[in-house]
């Protein structure tokens, strides 16, 4: 049985009210989203701003209430839980936010931040909490003595490590990572991505990874769902999706990402026009206003999300007729032989240094 099963999730926000409080306009943030996630696996929700990916992640945790649909976690119907049961459920599912500057209380030390979930859920007797905090800090690669520091004394990457440690404090089965590395510099980003993967292997965590960055998603996800204007347009195993994206929107997204490879040979699908508003999504297929393969049928009839035998599902009337997507990404060859050797040497040496003292980077806070 899957750890998480989401079926027909709908959330419309009221965008405008009349003088008497009657709703005049709705933002259809999430409109019929279904997916499932196995324990220990990573599902990535990808799409551009306003596609509803963050709303889905909050609905799954019941941080906001859906208008309709069901969320089953470990067989239990989340929407039927009373407040006490809901609080107990929060032990099993946690969230990490994009901005570690905003998600940590500036008036609490790292130690207090990590003690709070332990006390709230009464997981560890008070006498042992300090030891558990030290253990959590070590788990995310920080030195235990840093527990006395306040968030402003840490760098962005270290703060995100604390946010991860806080999520891990309750020993959850599922962590929702909402753009966890988008606010970080590239060299720090790789540290956090490596950490998330290592923790998954070690603790058997399941992740829902919300991101707009497909290169990051390719690195971390087992399964990918591409969202556009509140709906999933394509979902597949990550390898299958990146090898041959089917939906025209997935193709456009993949081909829009600049590759760090000058003069790479690839087909590009350049979209015209702007992202339509979720306030008033287009009729028929919601992508038809920007789709280079649009036909009359797309304007009137919304396509269903249909899966083939391998579980690769696409919501497009023209799935079968579209040209091959092989050339959207070059098969390999991103690294020249010289670069591959240099990177290997670089990593080998730094790994040696890192094992000598985990959290070596914790010795001096940034001054910027």
């Amino acid at each position, binding site marked *: 049985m899957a750890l998480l099963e989401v079926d027909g999730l709908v959330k419309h926000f009221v965008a405008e009210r009349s003088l008497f409080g009657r709703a005049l306009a709705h933002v259809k943030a999430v409109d019929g989203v279904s997916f499932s996630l196995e324990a220990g696996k990573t599902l990535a929700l990808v799409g551009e701003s306003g596609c509803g990916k963050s709303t889905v992640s909050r609905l799954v945790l019941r941080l906001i209430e859906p208008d309709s649909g069901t969320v089953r976690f470990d067989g239990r119907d989340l929407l039927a839980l009373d407040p006490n049961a809901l609080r107990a459920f929060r032990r099993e599912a946690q969230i990490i936010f994009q901005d570690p500057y905003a998600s940590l209380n500036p008036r609490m030390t790292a130690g207090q931040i990590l003690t709070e979930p332990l006390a709230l859920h009464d997981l560890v007797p008070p006498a042992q909490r300090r030891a558990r905090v030290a253990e959590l800090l070590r788990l995310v690669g920080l030195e235990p003595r840093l527990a006395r520091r306040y968030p402003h004394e840490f760098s962005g990457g270290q703060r995100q490590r604390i946010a991860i440690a806080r999520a891990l404090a309750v020993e959850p089965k599922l962590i929702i990572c909402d753009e966890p590395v988008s606010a970080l510099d590239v*060299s720090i980003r*790789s540290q956090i991505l490596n950490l998330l993967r290592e923790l998954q292997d070690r603790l058997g965590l399941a992740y829902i990874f919300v991101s707009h960055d497909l290169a990051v998603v*390719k690195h971390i996800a087992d399964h990918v769902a591409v969202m556009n204007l509140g709906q999933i347009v394509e979902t597949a195993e990550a390898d299958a999706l990146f090898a041959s994206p089917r939906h025209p929107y997935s193709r456009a997204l993949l081909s*829009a*990402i600049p590759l*760090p490879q000058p003069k790479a040979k690839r087909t590009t699908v350049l979209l015209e026009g702007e992202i339509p508003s979720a306030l008033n999504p287009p009729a028929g297929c919601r992508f038809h206003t920007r789709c280079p393969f649009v036909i009359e049928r797309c304007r009137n009839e919304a396509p269903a999300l249909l899966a083939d035998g391998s579980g690769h599902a696409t919501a497009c009337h023209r799935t079968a007729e579209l040209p091959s997507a092989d050339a959207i990404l070059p098969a390999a060859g991103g690294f020249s032989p010289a670069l591959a050797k240099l990177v*290997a040497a670089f*990593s080998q040496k730094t790994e040696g240094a*890192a094992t000598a003292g985990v959290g070596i980077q914790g010795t001096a806070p940034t*001054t910027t």
Partner: protein
Amino acid sequence: MSAAPLIEIKDLRICFHGDDGRITHAVDSVDLSVANGATLGLVGESGCGKSVTSLAIMGLLPKQSAEISGAIRFDGLDLLQTPDQTLRNLRGNRLAMIFQEPMTSLNPSFTIGDQIIETILRHRGGSRKSARERAIELLRRVHIPSPERRVDEYPHKLSGGMRQRVMIAMALACDPRLLIADEPTTALDVTLQAQILELMRELKAASGAAIILITHDLGVVAEVCDEVAVMYAGEIVERAPVDELFSAPQHPYTVGLLGSIPRLDHRAEQLATIEGMVPNMAQPPAGCRFAARCPFVLDACTTAPPPLIEVSPGHLSRCIRAPLERLVS
């Protein structure tokens, strides 16, 4: 590179004097040049000095707190010695800049047309009517649909991608010789980013302007730049033609950066990481500024600052261990 570059920066140093008397060395001995029609990518992580360098070129650093030395030669002038009045005539005219966040760089209380027209009238003069026609023409050039109508709209009515197009139209209003684009697509979604990058390539081909593109995204650099300068802790640590930088980098920091980005065109089980932190720029280290984080460090690295050496023609590296191929063969 042609004999006479359009802009040439020599030994640029910028220090900031903080209120508490602390001096931060934001940029140190930077040499750069860009030829007519060429695109230079300036890459590096937050705080490496890439934006400060561009603000110095534009003469936009605060005079009270920023101490600038060196020379910035543009078209026969040293911009650092140029009187403010002359600089004002250059900015928006022959020197133009696009910023990251189009919402904060457009004035919300004027229509986009007014803002473009103002630039044209300030530098070119002429009638308001002809300036308006030029504004509409510029909006058409950056692919804004129905520019005749859009010209009278306020910035808040436009989406992020549209606003960035307006910023580009405004920057191009007086046919600049040099365009500085500071993270022009960072705030945009990927499909819009692709449109803006395509537009920049198109405009470069049409106008022959030189471009300095500041970004942290190595993918963007690979797509639009001819040459790249990598900055770390206020210094240029590597400068190379774009192909060479990506195929055979000559500075360990560049190697670390290239190894640490997840890529669509490469599968890596484990990403490279750059351990440690950027040095405190109030007291920069005596030797190489990357030494504390460098896996290839030698004792000699920490004693004296390494010079920028030419590893191969046009490829410079501030590393005493370059060429790095020697380390892995």
